[in-house]
């Protein structure tokens, strides 16, 4: 009885793996685009020392970059509700004032719209962070470029990975069950 239960579980595991892989292969893909946003201030400081750099634009950019990188940027509520939901944007540390955003959208037009909205969100976040800084010294965000369109494979890849793991588990358990029969002995060898 036990043997049949274990065999059945292995077969079920393998079949579900195959099913998940087939689902993954039929998955519809969306698009991914990498966008760049330039952040600059009215008065650019060229630092002559590390201390000066940390106090100046470079230091502020590095700190804000870390904040953006850790928390990501969610599109604000003013965005089109139909665009909400899937877009979390990763931002790199902008030592040269350049932010990199990964935008996931259903198509290229939507990606462009998201990029435009993202620039506004970044500008809004900067304004909040720099509320105490005089306006002439405040950092500003402006769009630079949106990279080439690439397909988004996240869902497809996740299913392929999960399916492969399930089948590998089933195969390994089959091999072990066939080749390795451990005799009942005491737990002792020390």
């Amino acid at each position: 009885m036990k043997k049949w239960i274990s065999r059945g579980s292995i077969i079920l595991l393998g079949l579900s793996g195959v099913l998940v892989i087939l689902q993954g292969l039929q998955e519809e893909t969306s698009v991914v685009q990498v966008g760049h946003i330039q952040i600059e201030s009215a008065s650019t400081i060229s630092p002559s020392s590390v201390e000066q750099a940390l106090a100046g634009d470079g230091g502020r950019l590095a700190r804000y970059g870390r904040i953006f990188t850790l928390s990501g940027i969610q599109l604000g509520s003013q965005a089109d509700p139909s665009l909400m939901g899937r877009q979390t944007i990763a931002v790199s540390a902008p030592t040269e004032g350049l932010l990199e955003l990964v935008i996931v959208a259903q198509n290229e037009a939507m990606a462009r719209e998201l990029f435009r909205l993202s620039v506004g969100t970044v500008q809004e976040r900067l304004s909040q962070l720099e509320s105490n800084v005089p306006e002439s010294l405040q950092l500003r965000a402006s769009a630079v470029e949106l990279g080439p369109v690439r397909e988004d494979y996240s869902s497809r890849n996740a299913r392929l990975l999960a399916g492969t793991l399930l089948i590998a588990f089933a195969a390994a358990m089959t091999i072990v069950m066939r080749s390795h029969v451990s005799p009942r002995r005491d737990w002792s060898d020390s």
Partner: protein
Amino acid sequence: MGFPFAFIERLSDFQFGGEPIALAGALAAGLLLVRLRRSMLRIKVNFAAAALGILLLVASVLAPSGHVWRHVGAILLVSLVGALLAQSDLVVRLREVVWLATGFALISLGSALLLPRELTFVALGSESFTGVGIVPDGKLVGVAHGLSLLFALSVVVLCSPYECREKTFTWRWALMLAPSSLALVLSNSLSLVVGVVTALAIIWAALSLRKGRLVESMLILISFLLVAGVLFLTTLSSGISGRGESLTGRLPIWRNVLSQVKFGLMGAGPGQFWRMNGSNENLYVGGTWRSYSTHNSWLNVVLDYGLVGLFVVVGVLVATVLVLLTSTVSSKVIGGGFLCGLIVGASTGDVILEPTPAFAIFVWLILETHKPPGSPSGDCVPWVIADPIEGRRRKRSEKVD
């Protein structure tokens, strides 16, 4: 043979450059040949494998930096170290691990405390994930990952039923456990600490299961999963010293790889994914590093070896873990438990099919599955028994008796 953990770490430095890989490769291959019994070398397959290993090492040295052969050679070198480790009984090796880890931990902690920073290879720093240390918020800076692995394995061995099954508490046990545990925590490797806890939970659950205590075994595993889940969610939501939210910059890289790379049956080749296309640099957007890696072994395997590679790797690992954990030899169960810990650690680092000390341990433990069960005294029957020639001789002599 000693246990060369402390030096294995340096192998990764030779991954893509210089002649040291030639010297190390020749030494490892030579040592392996010396260690193998003559009778084993008489078998054509073994001889061919050894010869092929040396040839691959030579090819890897002649290959340019970043080339596929260079990577294959470095992996083979680490595999040879794993094979060397498997040449003796697991029990003996584990005892060596405990003694060596105690020694290295004492040296590390002592030098960190007593010597000036510039005179020692370890030092007390800051930003520990636990905040526990000799000094507040301290850690051992510069401890190689190989040493951390040594401490981790030692803690697993000392806290498993193999060592303290019939003992309650001994000073020697405590004195050996304390330095390794402290050094492990201070080495600031969160995934290794999680791996150690995983390994211990699995080993103790396996022991309970073997004794027929199904409920106890389930309780151990469920409590472990609950605690691990709560800690993981806490780490992600609040962040410990900046590690949370993005797992020290790993999550954005994983997210980018999953969404922008089309996984296929075959990968780019050993160590080649990041080098085959300059635009792959975009996958680092939002991450902390740009270092030819995703910092996740499973993704690395898929990118370099494809889904077929992942299938083979996972199949071999699952089979190895099952064989070891269901073994009647307790040292093998400890090996199986530690392998589970390494599998957890592989999710945040370059471990599998990479020239790292952890992969040497993988190879070592995989080879342990092919050894015959141990005698009641615990020492495994010498590996030579697996040799058909010796086996036949032994059978003949038994018949005569």
